[in-house]
């Protein structure tokens, strides 16, 4: 048990947070509320999961929030004239393409990931606003789509089930496929990976494509919940929340280190804080402050270990 705590500190923090919030608010542990937390967190969770891939591969993707927005307006807008399934495919395809574009720009031209994805962040947001004329789009969406957001299966909300499923697939991908392993290798030491015969560019492009896909999937979930698409406010700041969730879960921003389970816990923590602060009637700006503090503490606790290790490594050389 102690070992478990030591190797998965974020699980421990998540449990403590749950307990604290539960004690503070009597309604926190009600099944409806817990389901609500899962529903809320899974939206950010998809984006954070994509970010987790990119970060492990040694990159950074700031365009995710804009991709969520573009996806939401595309699905809502295209459903006016075309069958909804077409809009969904177009939106998911667009997410993947944006990810590939990010990856190609970063690998072939050796641009900094932060610069490339800031650019695509602006471009994609602009495209979404142009497409929607900056107004919310109320599409003609089928009933089944709303089930995606509000339905339950075996007592669990459908979005949460989908998110857990995505996590399970990601775990399999990262640990049981060569390509998944290569993401860690490229992020851990790009030159060593190249010399070991790995196609570094391909691996990196794949991580951005996954991030783009999962972000546009989050857009789909958002449309299902809101029953509309909107380009101006949707997904603003999500890139930072996603990075925060991954970092709280122990994903290294230097690449090569990170787990899906950590990212899952990080996303749950952020969702849970939003929910608990709401229940406790605490002003939302406190929520931002606390997320900031939690992030700083988490990253400091991880990096103090790596600082120690670095020190150890260089002391005798």
């Amino acid at each position, binding site marked *: 048990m102690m070992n478990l705590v030591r190797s998965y500190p974020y699980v421990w923090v998540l449990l403590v947070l749950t307990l604290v919030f539960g004690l503070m608010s009597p309604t926190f542990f009600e099944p409806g509320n817990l389901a609500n937390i899962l529903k809320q967190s899974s939206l950010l969770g998809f984006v954070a999961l994509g970010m987790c891939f990119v970060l492990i591969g040694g990159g950074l993707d700031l365009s995710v929030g804009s991709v969520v927005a573009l996806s939401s307006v595309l699905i809502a807008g295209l459903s006016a004239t075309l069958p909804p399934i077409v809009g969904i495919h177009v939106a998911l395809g667009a997410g993947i393409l944006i990810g590939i574009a990010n990856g190609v720009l970063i690998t072939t031209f050796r641009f900094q990931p932060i610069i490339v994805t800031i650019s695509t962040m602006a471009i994609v947001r602009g495209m979404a606003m142009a497409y929607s004329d900056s107004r919310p789009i109320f599409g003609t969406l089928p009933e089944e789509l709303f089930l995606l957001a509000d339905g339950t299966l075996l007592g669990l909300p459908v979005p949460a089930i989908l998110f857990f499923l995505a996590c399970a697939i990601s775990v*399999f991908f990262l*640990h*049981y*496929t*060569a390509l998944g*392993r*290569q993401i*860690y*290798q490229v992020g*851990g*030491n790009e*030159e*060593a*990976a*190249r*010399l*070991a*015969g*790995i*196609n570094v560019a391909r691996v990196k492009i794949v991580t951005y494509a996954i991030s783009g896909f999962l972000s546009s999937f989050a857009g789909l979930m958002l449309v299902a919940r809101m029953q509309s698409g909107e380009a101006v406010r949707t997904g603003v700041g999500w890139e930072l929340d996603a990075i925060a969730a991954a970092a709280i879960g122990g994903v*290294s921003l230097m690449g*090569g*280190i990170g787990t899906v389970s950590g990212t899952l816990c990080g996303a749950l923590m952020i969702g849970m804080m939003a929910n608990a602060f709401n229940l406790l009637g605490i002003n939302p700006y406190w929520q931002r402050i606390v997320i900031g503090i939690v992030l700083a503490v988490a990253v400091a606790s991880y990096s103090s270990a790596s600082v120690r*290790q670095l020190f150890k*490594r260089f002391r*005798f050389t």
Partner: protein
Amino acid sequence: MFLEARGISKFYPGVKALKGVDFTVDAGEIVAVVGENGAGKSTLMKVLAGAIRPNEGTIKVDGSEVSFSGPIEAQSHGICTIYQELLIVPELSVVENVFLGHLKKKNGILDWVTMRREAAEILTRLGLTASVDSKAGQLSIAEQQLIEIAKSLSRKSRLLIMDEPTASLSKDEVDNLFKLVRSLRDEGIAIVLITHHLHEIFQICDRLIVLRDGDYVGASTIDQIDEAELVNMMLGHAVNNDTAKHRAVVQRDEVVLEARGLSRRPDLNGVDLALHRGEVLGIAGLMGAGRTELVRALFGADRLDEGTVKVNGKLAVLSSPRVALEQGLGLAPEDRKSEGLILSMPIGQNTTLPSLASHCGFFGLDLQKESQAAADLCKRLFVKYSNLNQPVGNLSGGNQQKVVLAKLLGAGTEIYLLDEPTRGIDIGAKEAIFDLIWDLTSKGNSVIIISSVIDELIRVCDRIICLHLGKVTNTYDREDFDLNRIMLNAMGKNVDVSEVSQ
């Protein structure tokens, strides 16, 4: 005497880098510090520059004892160091670089007028024609080096320590530098020079001291010593030739790797080589001779300007490491930490790095099979570890190197390119690596090995080629191995047998 160091010792856990070394240098003389890699030259220079503190010994400047808390304090005594890796900020202008760290102020604001004037004065003195406003990064390496010297002079330096200043300069640039160094000496500045190029020592220095394994071996004025004596002092021991028993004479009937006219300017200038099946081919040469560039080019890690490579008699376009791996080549890179290993990942996953695809089953990776394969490979190389899942960065240098070799073994390599495989590892691990090399070649594999320690090459190789300035200067077969000649060849000297045979 400007600077006088007595009985300097520096200990690291398990290593005595310096053992009671004496060193003096006076104004207006050029002193060389000579020794093989690992002899303690750099440690001594770092002690004098205040970058590290000695465990024992005293340093006197102008007759009074000093104890440097850091490089800044050493600089305040007029001791400046120019490291091999130049500390130039490429984005800043020349004048900003010259006054980096000691910008001049007048009334609290920066006095660019004075700084520009002084920088221009110093640069004229050094013969640098570039404008003080041009960006340092746009200048050539030689010009950047002059900026480093200008930096020291602007601090009123009285002792200039230069670590391998000629390593990346052309011949004309070296001549210019030496002219300048002589004029600085004549102006009364003391100069300490570290160099691998013996002829440079005889060209420019007044005096030299020799270090070996951290020991002070001796000192001499330049006119009382010749190159052969100096080499003897540096090496200091007879070579043991107990290696012949390890192997039979290699049959040179099948060329597995053949290179013609490999060029990657300025590092490689038309290198030809042939490697036979079952052969160990050594590459001797100084740092910067093109050794690393040669094996990296063979492995497809860097692009070639010209040249062809044949693998097993067939023309091969080695456009990337992946292609080279498929052809059966494997590289153990020079810097195992930055190029050979992924330090954040476990031992097991590092071991199977290039061979991962072979552990893929229908349902993805077969982790059990993979870790079994990793365990087998590590066992074959006697890697000492407690758990395959511990990060590879926790292993000792020797064991890390073994993991790098295990990696190649697992990838089904037939032609091994080993770049300094013995650097920084202990004797036991070294022997294990030599044993592995002999074992591999007896099974029909071939090895190219680079080492700065010629003794090691003589022990392990069937044939040695000497590389200097990107060209092969000589080739020796096993029966002709001669330490001194190989060493002089590697330093760019062509010698008669009679000259050094005594």
